[in-house]
């Protein structure tokens, strides 16, 4: 019994300690951000490897999610004779929720895990240590560019996801099921509000980008320098960022739409 309580206390303390370290780490990264402007090439390269290389999975997933939305939306709407409203339904679901959330989950799996594994391996093979001994600050040279790259890429990827999703809905709804093409887009325009829907989705994707990249880079930095440690850190990145994204989505949705 006593053991269980001590165990609980210990794991709570450990969690708190990790959180504290993650926060200090974040502050240090933020303090090194001037390097991003001074040597934009470093960040650009990371945007390529974090963002551009995630494009394929984002585009394909977006297309299929949009297609499924179009199909399911049509089946429900046609019962009420409201199949013309399909464009609005697809766009709203994507822009408000599915775009940011699914992109963030895919981003954590594709780019986040890669970031963690890369940094963990750099730590294990003493590359970060060697850099420090060469008087090169790894926060500036390694962490800050990756952090900014993830932070910038995520909202863009979410936007691409939503755009491709809308096209997927169009393909199924208009192409296969015979919804009127003009109605699809005019409904979309009529229902989707810039501030209320698009902007709230953008804010969500910015927050998710920040959190997922923070978790991924920190997990790599904090990994135990063994192969087991790297594998654990990579798993942690995916699990923790997915949970964080879903939890934050709930909170953000509550904040944005709760009052209305």
């Amino acid at each position, binding site marked *: 019994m006593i053991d269980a309580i001590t165990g609980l206390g210990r794991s709570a303390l450990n969690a708190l300690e990790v959180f504290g370290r993650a926060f200090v780490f974040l502050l240090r990264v933020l303090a090194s951000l001037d390097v991003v402007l001074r040597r934009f090439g470093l960040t650009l390269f990371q945007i390529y490897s974090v963002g551009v290389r995630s494009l394929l999975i984002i585009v394909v997933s977006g297309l299929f999610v949009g297609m499924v939305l179009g199909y399911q939306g049509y089946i429900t709407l046609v019962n009420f004779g409201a199949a013309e409203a399909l464009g609005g339904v697809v766009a709203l679901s994507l822009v408000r929720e599915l775009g940011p959330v699914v992109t963030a989950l895919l981003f954590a799996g594709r780019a986040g895990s890669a970031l963690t594994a890369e940094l963990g391996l750099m730590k294990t*093979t003493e590359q970060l240590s060697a850099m420090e001994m*060469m*008087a*090169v600050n790894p926060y500036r040279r390694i962490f800050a560019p990756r952090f900014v790259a993830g932070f910038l890429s995520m909202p863009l990827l979410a936007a691409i996801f939503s755009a491709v999703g809308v096209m997927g809905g169009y393909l199924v709804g208009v192409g296969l099921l015979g919804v009127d093409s003009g109605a699809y887009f005019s409904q979309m325009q009529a229902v989707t509000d810039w501030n209320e829907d698009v902007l709230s989705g953008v804010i969500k994707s910015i927050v998710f980008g920040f959190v997922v990249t923070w978790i991924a880079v920190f997990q790599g930095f904090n990994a135990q320098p063994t192969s087991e440690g790297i594998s654990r850190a990579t798993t942690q990145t995916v699990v923790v960022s997915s949970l964080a994204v879903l939890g934050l989505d709930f909170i953000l949705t509550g904040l944005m739409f709760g009052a209305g």
Partner: protein
Amino acid sequence: MAEPPVADSPHIVIENLCFRRGRKVIFDDLSMRIPRGQVTTVMGPSGSGKTTLLRLIGGQLRPDNGRIWVDGQEVARLSTRRLYALRKRMGMLFQSGALLTDLSVFENVAFPLREHTNLPEDVLQTLVLLKLEAVGLRAARDLDPASLSGGMARRVALARAIALDPDLIMYDEPFTGLDPITMGQIVSLIRRTNQSLGLTSVLVSHDVAEAMAISDQVVLIAGGQVVDAGAPDELKARASDWSAQFLQGRPDGPVPFHYPGASYRDDLLGQRRDD
């Protein structure tokens, strides 16, 4: 309190160093001096904190107690900027080489130059080739670090460590895991680098024969303290029991073969655990 050393005095002075990792005491009141322009080897059993010592000298770890001066500057008290300035005059060779895996051999050696200088590309190219030539790997400049053998990786790392012409270079276990030919190459490189560049070399090793052959001074550490120190011949002549066991590699002696714990008999015939 000792006064900070001046230019012609030892390159590194360590006084009353204490360092703990969790509850484990790594160094307990350790003091040593590392003379300028010579090869000094710190030897000791595995786990005696040799690598930790290099990290303390390089300012990557902070001592719990005691002081370390490098070139008259107390490492733990330097601001980040001055610590980095000091590190530019320090080279360190990691056991694994620690080459940056996303860069070619050439770019690895060029890395510190690109980070810290604004040299025109052709000057930089000449400098890097000079350093690579010194370690015999000029022709390997376009290779990927992953395709290098352990010995080659270490030689590239050496070229990188001397890229900024430091006046102190630290080697972490430079002889571990090498075949005899590569070992010979590394031994002669360390000696040659020391002579031609006139720098201070600090080695950490437990390869007795190579270390004794190469060093001007040997320091033996164990149990967190300096056990013995002196020129290699001197050390061999007057070695204490412990040093003799270490230098001749006897399995048992003052350092027991068995990890300390409950007696064998108690463990085999002992009580069942309560829980």
